[in-house]
């Protein structure tokens, strides 16, 4: 049986950066290993300066590993052909300000060997996907931060890659823009595209990722399925709708009558501030 290669495979990645003369090199990544299978949405989380971006750059061949190995769909990251199947959105990207949104996508499409009608169709499709069709002829220099991130996501998808790498995709974007980007990531997941993203906005990672890795001071300190990692094994949650105070009392009494079981907390679940904000904004728009 033919084994499917992982979308991303990083083995014992070490990356040292030279510092000033005679000083010890700075170890940005220290023995990181991870494996992302096709179709997964993997979130690499960690504080600033923990080695997230360096790991991504090593995976894209933008930096060469001091030791270790990175591969995309089984192909060595240092080889150009490994980039056939990958799209990348860097942190705080600035695209060529003199190009319009449409021209930007055409430029990246041509770099990937697309042309003619196929490229035109792809540009139209992506502009519609990221909701920028109305801004296609506007210069990118006049785009807002959220629009820049969305055109960045569109350029990452131009050659229909099987893997998309996103470095802090919602950094500096307002809640509405941030929601749009998260919805796009969800759409990619539905389409079976592997997503590897890094962020320090934990709530957002939790919302979109099915696998996570926690990196700290260059080392991977925890990795696995999100559900497994965040579940509290000895607790169970039941959420009821329209439960009367009598029903709550009965349930509480039943639990307390059971040896070893206890009600830890009961009350009304709360929405997040972000959901409240988005709901209010959309109601106001109507």
């Amino acid at each position, binding site marked *: 049986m*033919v084994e*499917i290669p992982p979308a991303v495979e990083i083995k014992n990645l070490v990356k040292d950066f030279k510092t000033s003369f005679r000083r010890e090199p700075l170890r940005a990544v220290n023995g990181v290993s991870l494996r992302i299978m096709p179709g997964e949405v993997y979130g690499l989380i960690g504080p600033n300066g923990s080695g997230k971006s360096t790991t991504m750059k090593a995976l894209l061949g933008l930096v060469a590993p001091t030791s270790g190995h990175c591969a995309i*769909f089984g192909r060595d990251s240092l080889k150009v052909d490994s980039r056939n199947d990958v799209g990348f959105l860097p942190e705080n990207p*600035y695209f*060529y300000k003199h190009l319009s949104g449409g021209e930007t996508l055409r430029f990246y499409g041509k*770099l990937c060997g697309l042309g003619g009608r196929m490229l035109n169709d792809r540009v139209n499709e992506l502009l519609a996907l990221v909701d920028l069709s109305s801004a296609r002829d506007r210069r990118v220099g006049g785009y807002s931060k959220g629009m820049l991130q969305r055109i960045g996501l569109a350029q990452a998808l131009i050659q229909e890659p099987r893997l998309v790498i996103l470095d802090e995709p919602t950094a500096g974007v307002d809640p509405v823009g941030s929601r749009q980007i998260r919805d796009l990531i969800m759409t990619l997941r539905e389409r079976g595209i592997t997503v590897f993203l890094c962020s320090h906005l934990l709530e957002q990672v939790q919302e979109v990722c099915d696998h996570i890795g926690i990196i700290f001071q260059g080392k991977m300190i925890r990795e696995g399925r999100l559900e497994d990692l965040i579940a509290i094994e000895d607790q169970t949650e039941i959420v009821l709708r329209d439960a009367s105070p009598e029903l709550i009392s009965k349930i509480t009494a039943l639990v307390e009558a059971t040896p070893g079981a206890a009600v830890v907390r009961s009350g009304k679940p709360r929405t997040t501030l972000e959901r409240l904000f988005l709901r209010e904004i959309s109601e106001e728009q109507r």
Partner: protein
Amino acid sequence: MSTATSKPIKGSHWSRILTIATHAFTQLVRMKVFYFLAIFAVIAIASNFFDLPQHEGPEAVGANVLRSIKSWSLGAMTLFSVVLAIVATALLLPKDVEDRTLYTILAKPVPRFDYLAGKLLGVLLLIFVSLALMDILMVGVLQIRTSMVIEQQQAMAKGMGWTQEAINSLRVETEANGANASLQGAVLAVFLRASIMASLALLISTFSTSTLFTTIVSFLIYFIGHFQADAREVYLHSEQAGEGVFARIGALLFSLVLPDFQLFNVIDAVIEGQVMPLMELGKLVVVAGYYAVFFTVASWFIFSDKEF
């Protein structure tokens, strides 16, 4: 077992290089670099008025003004093309790194050589188009002025009772000072010199930390290039170097790495009305081709290991 096999990159090297080149060209055009053409137009027209008073005879009438138009125009072409070659090349690479657009390009299946070659070709395309426009303007001004000078000379010669043969001979001589094939050869030489400077600036920008450093070093090498041949000769004939083999090898290596811009002095000869031999132009093409390829390949060696 992994199923990974080497998958060919879509699109040819040429198509990627051309995409990057046309983009670099558009980028520079939208930075409004063509505004300098207005300054050139002023120079080309103003050079018409540098006509010193003549008293000798018809053969001297207007000769200075034709020389002045060529001299000022080719001088302005040299200045603009060299400045464009250095500054535009020095600007493009660091700007892409600073804006992180380089990440998005190199994260696509784009070999680093294609990126560098595309940027260089874009700058060369801009210089070529600029020189072509300046050339059209210069030839236009020169044609009009040459016909005016010929008319003036003929009227004066007839008045002084010259023979028709002498008048025809004067006409040929004056036309040699006008817009001719040698002048186009000189414009090509200006382009070749700018090409060397653009590829040199590209090399420096691959290891430089700032646009300012690249610009200053490039201009320094440009000036050194104008007297390096003399310096080499002086050194080889000095007592320290003598006839030593190492001195000769050193001097040869020096000239292989640093361009000798004295070879381009043929442009001055064209201004003086001399004919540029095709062989001389061919030599310049070969020399410029050598330096452009050498500097671009050296840039690629450095850039291929560069980390971002």
